[in-house]
């Protein structure tokens, strides 16, 4: 990680927190911090990505503005995180996409939709596009199967590759070794933290989602969105399986597995994304890194649109609107896949990696870190 102003600000804050430690019960950041006395840029990258932005430590901090120390960890870490996304992006020349990321993600989405519409209109007979299509293969009469698979599969595989490279860059930079990735217990702990969002709990009493008061809304919305996303993904996979191996061609009836998974997942995503957007609008802006909000909104809206168009497609697939909707939906899915490695979505990769690093630190192989607490005093 390179030295930047945000990194220096994070270091100043961590030096103060490390002398204070009042927040150590809130999340993983503080125990991880306590294992260190000096904070290299890479340490701060790790800590910033470990921060879940629950904002608990902002409201609890006796050094928050207007105190002259002006500690605001959620905002400070958010800025560092944004820089780490750029730092670890692959391939390197695309790192610049993280600057003005909100605009770029929105543009990509708009382009994706437009392209899909124009392409379908160009390839297909307009009559097909606007008239109701029924029976097996109805979708492919709008967009040919080969095109769907090439575009979707290609962009998906690229996204996976780019994210994996990002993970590798983060892992190396923060001092990780490949062999650590095979230790079972830390992996299980990290997976547990990732899937439950344990650190988005403010140490048990909830987060400061909107302000001084505690709630678990953000965590629940995130769960709805995340698990909704997984269900939608599962729907796609089962559909591919049906199509490929069972020879059953889409569209599927409502009570089929792909449609059920997709419906439940889509509703989860819409509720989750909608809720998260709402929280961002109503939240106290003091602990927020304002200039990064654009990127957050852009991705949330894109995810929301993905799910919403999918649901709409399901509802209206028997009508003449199906053709346009399908093109739109696929355009959005395509742009989502394309922007994933260059959007806020990467936080999932780095946060997971940071949680794994933390699990490894908490379960060191023998002969590690002594504590420096023994001579401490207290008032």
């Amino acid at each position, binding site marked *: 990680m390179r030295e930047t102003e945000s990194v220096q600000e994070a270091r100043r804050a961590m030096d103060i927190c490390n002398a204070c430690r009042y927040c150590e*019960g809130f999340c993983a950041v503080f125990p991880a911090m306590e294992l260190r006395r000096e904070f290299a840029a890479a340490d701060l990258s790790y800590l910033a990505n470990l921060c879940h932005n629950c904002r608990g430590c902002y409201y*609890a901090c006796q050094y928050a503005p*207007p105190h002259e120390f002006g500690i605001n960890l959620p905002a400070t870490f958010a800025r560092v995180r944004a820089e780490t996304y750029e730092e670890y992006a692959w391939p390197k020349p695309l790192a610049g996409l993280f600057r003005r990321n909100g605009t770029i993600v929105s543009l990509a989405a708009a382009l994706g939709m437009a392209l899909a519409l124009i392409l379908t209109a160009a390839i297909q007979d307009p009559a097909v596009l606007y008239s109701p299509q029924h029976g097996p293969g109805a979708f492919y009469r709008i967009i040919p199967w080969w095109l769907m698979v090439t575009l979707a599969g290609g962009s998906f595989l690229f996204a996976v590759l780019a994210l994996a490279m990002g993970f590798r860059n983060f892992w190396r930079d923060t001092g990780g070794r490949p062999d650590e990735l095979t230790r079972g217990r830390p992996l299980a702990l990290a997976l547990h933290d990732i899937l439950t969002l344990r650190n988005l709990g403010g140490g048990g009493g909830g987060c400061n989602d909107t302000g001084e008061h505690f709630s678990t809304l953000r965590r629940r919305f995130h769960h709805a969105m995340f698990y909704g996303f997984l269900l939608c993904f599962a729907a796609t996979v089962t559909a591919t399986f049906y199509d490929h191996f069972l020879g059953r061609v889409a569209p599927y009836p409502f009570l089929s597995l792909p449609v059920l998974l997709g419906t439940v997942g889509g509703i989860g995503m819409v509720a989750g994304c909608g809720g998260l957007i709402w929280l961002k609008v109503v939240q106290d802006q003091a602990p927020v890194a304002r200039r990064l909000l654009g990127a957050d909104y852009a991705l949330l809206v894109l995810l929301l649109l993905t799910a919403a168009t999918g649901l709409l497609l399901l509802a209206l697939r028997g009508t003449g609107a199906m053709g346009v909707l399908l093109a739109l939906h696929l355009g959005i899915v395509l742009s989502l896949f394309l922007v994933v490695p260059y959007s806020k979505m990467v936080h999932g990769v780095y946060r997971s990696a940071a949680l794994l690093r933390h699990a490894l630190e908490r379960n060191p192989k023998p002969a590690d870190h002594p504590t420096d607490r023994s001579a401490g005093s207290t008032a």
Partner: protein
Amino acid sequence: MVDLSRLYDVLVVGGGNAALCAAVTARQAGCSVLVLEHAPKPLRGGNSRHTRNMRTMHKAPTSVLTEAYLEDEYWDDLLRVTGGQTDERLARLTIRATADALPFMEACGVRFQPSLTGTLNLSRTNAFFLGGGKALVNAYYATAERLGIDILYDTEVTDLVLDDGFVREAVVTSKGFPERVRAKVVVASSGGFQANLEWLKQGWGPAAENFLIRGTPYAKGRVLRNLLDQGVASVGDPTQCHAVAIDGRAPKFDGGIVTRLDCVPFSIVVNRNGERFYDEGEDVWPKRYAIWGRLVAQQPDQVGYAIIDSRAERLFMPSVFPAIKSDTIEGLAEKLGLPPAKVAATVRAFNAACRPGPFDSSRLDGLRTEGITPPKTNWARDISVPPYIGYPLRPGITFTYLGVKVDENARVLMEDGRPTANLFASGEIMAGSILGKGYLAGFGMAIGTVFGRIAGREAAKHARN
């Protein structure tokens, strides 16, 4: 909107832990309650927002406290630190009441840390607030708002008009405007006077000018002074304050916990003239940090400099301010603004007095100097492995001891021993009744919580009669 023309049942002066415990308790008993806090909202909560734990009696392990900590042990601990300057009846009452305080606090939304990761060894005696004192204060304010308590920030009480032991009204300055407030009962919970340098000078002379105040700048003792001037009985030594040695680069006010510096036992400490002045290794730091404030306050310019070598750097909690380093003692002295030759001579003399032997930072290792005054009686290892590291030290004032005298119902007493008619007090402002000298970690919040609740209960009883 807060209507200051109405007659409140209970007026609570102050906005820290003691004030809020009283306000919530009185409100729960059905009273209308007004809280007046001098600080603006973002800085509310007095010294309480800098705290981290409360010393709590308990008969069996709880979710936040290990083993047991019984009344007699608690009392013995208190007796030791106060050297007997305490009131056994009030002290034992406080100690016993801490046992029921936790459920009240939790009901008010205060959360505790399950157990401490470090080795402070306090998780048996002290319950740690999750997120520290500001989180605690936030929880009480949220509860107060929910219960319908009126709160005015940026509002200073300047006069509680006493008439034959009866508070007629409170004269206040609210957001810059003069107001008068009437209430059937008043609870004074406005803290100590440690932020009032002029007052501190009365006990310490001009030296007080150089003191740093660890907590809120709003604890100026205005109400305390006002009450004492009107014949309220005082308790505690008017000249004394709890002073610890903190990093000399700390801000004048509100530096809080992070300005502490735990390196003294592993260092030598010199004054402005480059001379040592006290045994740095007399005892473990938790037992000595409070006398070092006084020691440094007695040195010229009220400043000291702790000097260690690189081997000692990892032996204490990191300080928030960067270590000042140099490869030579002379170079370090120069950076610290000390006479280089003199400091070098002091270090040489100290090194020559060190004896070989096992050094152990985790206990009193008995490694002592021979042949110098003052001696260093533990951890006396020579200062010889560069880089050399220095930290400036100044006295940091935690709180003052002088307070108003109360009885076991938190009722304020007049100089002639008669009780006041409708005035109660809780927290730092009456703590001198129990803590006449010294300090026991976590006892400030114990007094504030216990007497806050008593004051709230009694105030409510009185207001409804």
